[in-house]
């Protein structure tokens, strides 16, 4: 089963890339050159590789957030909202707590952002756990509410007073250091990787994680052996929300240096897709997040040097996701062939 799943993923990638190549060729460009520029744009040189890394961090964290909540059988589509709230919380602490030394200021920002995200995620979690309210629709709606809240905060109480709705710049003690200048990649990468390891440990090696997985797999069984399914579900959502908030905080503290109204073009939705393709397997999540980040970063280089619009790469990614979601697509073919033989 494992091997066929790998085969399925590889076949899916190949088909989507071939499709992209066909479109590029149809447009009168050389597909080989386009893909070479894509690779160069993702990995060649500090700036390009940094670009991949800076996209990798939020994708990884939001994908993790989605994967964790799915362990307790909650479909958390609200990571985008948690990301926004975490981002504005970090931006607020980054300005308001000026004067703290860096060793306290940065953790404080991160913790406040994670609390903001987790409290927000607790609402749909509690609604689902207590009253079985469909979490997908609550979280979709909650995203809009969260974005409007941040939009109000950045437009009025926390506004920097400039024409563009944004907060004041964070003090230097709340900034995450850049690791590959001139790109915007920053030490948030290591925070994200630490979060990945911790989450993996939490879910697969700790008692808490056992409870979470038990509740996710079979709430009836979990309740029977004395696990409190409801509170476990809410805790799972809160961990997920904390990861989303962390992603937002790193965006603000590492990439922008301030909170900008509507800054995220659906980062968490990309992360969610990475988690979905990985089938919420925490070991596969970083690989797919990295793959998507590289494609997104490389697309910019490809557009610059070949004139092929980067939207083509987005289309290829979407195709890939669509094909990857169709479980049986390549497997069935093979089984049919096997029968004939």
């Amino acid at each position, binding site marked *: 089963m494992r091997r066929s799943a790998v085969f399925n993923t590889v076949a899916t990638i190949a088909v989507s890339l071939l499709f992209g190549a066909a479109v590029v060729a149809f447009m009168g460009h050389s597909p080989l050159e386009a893909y070479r520029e894509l690779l160069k744009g993702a990995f060649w040189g500090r700036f390009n590789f940094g670009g991949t890394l800076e996209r990798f961090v939020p994708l990884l964290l939001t994908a993790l957030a989605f994967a964790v909540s799915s362990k307790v059988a909650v479909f958390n589509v609200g990571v985008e909202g948690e990301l926004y709230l975490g981002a504005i919380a970090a931006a607020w602490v980054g300005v308001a707590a000026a004067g703290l030394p860096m060793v306290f200021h940065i953790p404080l920002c991160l913790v406040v952002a994670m609390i903001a995200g987790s409290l927000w995620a607790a609402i749909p979690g509690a609604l689902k756990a*207590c009253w079985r309210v469909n979490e997908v629709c609550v979280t979709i709606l909650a995203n809009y509410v969260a974005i409007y809240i941040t939009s109000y905060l950045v437009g009025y109480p926390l506004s920097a007073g400039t024409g563009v709705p944004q907060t004041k710049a964070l003090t230097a003690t709340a900034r995450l250091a850049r690791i590959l200048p001139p790109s915007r990649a920053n030490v948030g990468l290591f925070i994200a990787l630490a979060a990945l390891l911790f989450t993996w440990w939490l879910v697969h090696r700790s008692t808490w994680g056992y409870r979470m997985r038990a509740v996710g797999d079979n709430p009836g069984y979990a309740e029977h052996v004395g696990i409190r399914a409801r509170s476990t579900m809410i805790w799972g959502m809160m961990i997920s929300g904390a990861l989303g908030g962390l992603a937002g905080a790193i965006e603000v503290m590492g990439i922008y240096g301030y909170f900008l109204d509507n800054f995220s073009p659906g980062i968490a939705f990309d992360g969610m*897709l990475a988690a979905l393709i990985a089938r919420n397997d925490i070991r596969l999540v970083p690989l797919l997040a990295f793959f998507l980040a590289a494609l997104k970063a490389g697309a910019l280089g490809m557009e610059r040097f070949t004139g092929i619009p980067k939207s083509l790469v987005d289309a290829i990614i979407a195709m890939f996701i669509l094909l990857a979601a169709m479980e049986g697509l390549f497997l069935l073919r093979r089984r049919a062939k096997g029968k004939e033989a």
Partner: protein
Amino acid sequence: MFDDLSLVFNYTLVHATLRASTPILYATLTCILTQQADILNIGVEGIMLCGAFMAVTVSYFSGSWLLALAAAVLVGTAISAVMAVAHLRYKADIFVVGMAINMLALAVTRFLLQKVLGTSGSFYDKAIVPLPRIHLAFTDGNEILRSLFSDYSLFEPLGIVFVFLLWWLLYRTVWGLRLRSVGLNPLAAETAGIPVFRKKFEVMLYSGVVGGMAGAYLSLGYSRLFAENMTNGRGFMGVAAMFFGGGDPIRSWIGCLIFGFTDSVGSRLQSLGLPPQFILMIPYVATIAVLALALARKTANERRARSALK
């Protein structure tokens, strides 16, 4: 202060509300159709966007809004057919399929905007023929009557007709009964001899038709241009309105009107320099509250019923 409020709340709000709610209404109808067969059609956003692009392109090149509408419907149906094959035949999670379709639509329309229409951002041209507007000559003398009743785009009153038509189809015809039984209990439906797979596929195609119309209205009725990501979450608002009404067309329409109302009020407040965000939040918060209260009551009832039996 009261002067400001009368600028926000006056008779022109009726027209503005109807106009702003119509794109959401079509998105909602798209969702309701599939939701009744227990398929959450998250891909409305993508279907609408492709429909909107197709409508503008065809209208620009052919100069006919009828052709444009037909093309948009065709594209919508094609996309929903792909979704149906992926979900029903190859067992893909409908949620993933929908999100992928949204992403694909955004990328493809951006790509084609650049390659076919030769611009990026947005495309506007005098040669784009919009959907016809209904002008009622007898209202010309009276400003208030004209605002209330005249100058609607064809698809605005038609949307209201569709609401009642769909309600009738769902709750008063055999077709609707079968469709709802497929959604409520597929196993029972199968046992009763209803072809579940075919029924689901069929309704996906119909939702594509409505989704395509939604797109055509958005680009040729609501506005007269195509812009990147011009749906801007309206598909999701449609999903929200569908949840608000619990899949019932009439109650969902009320949800759409609330969306349209808050949207119009919000944009007026913003032009006066007042924060519009809290007004804009209302429909979302209201939908969550409606859902939570409905289910809270249901669980409480179930609990009471259970304890009575024991």
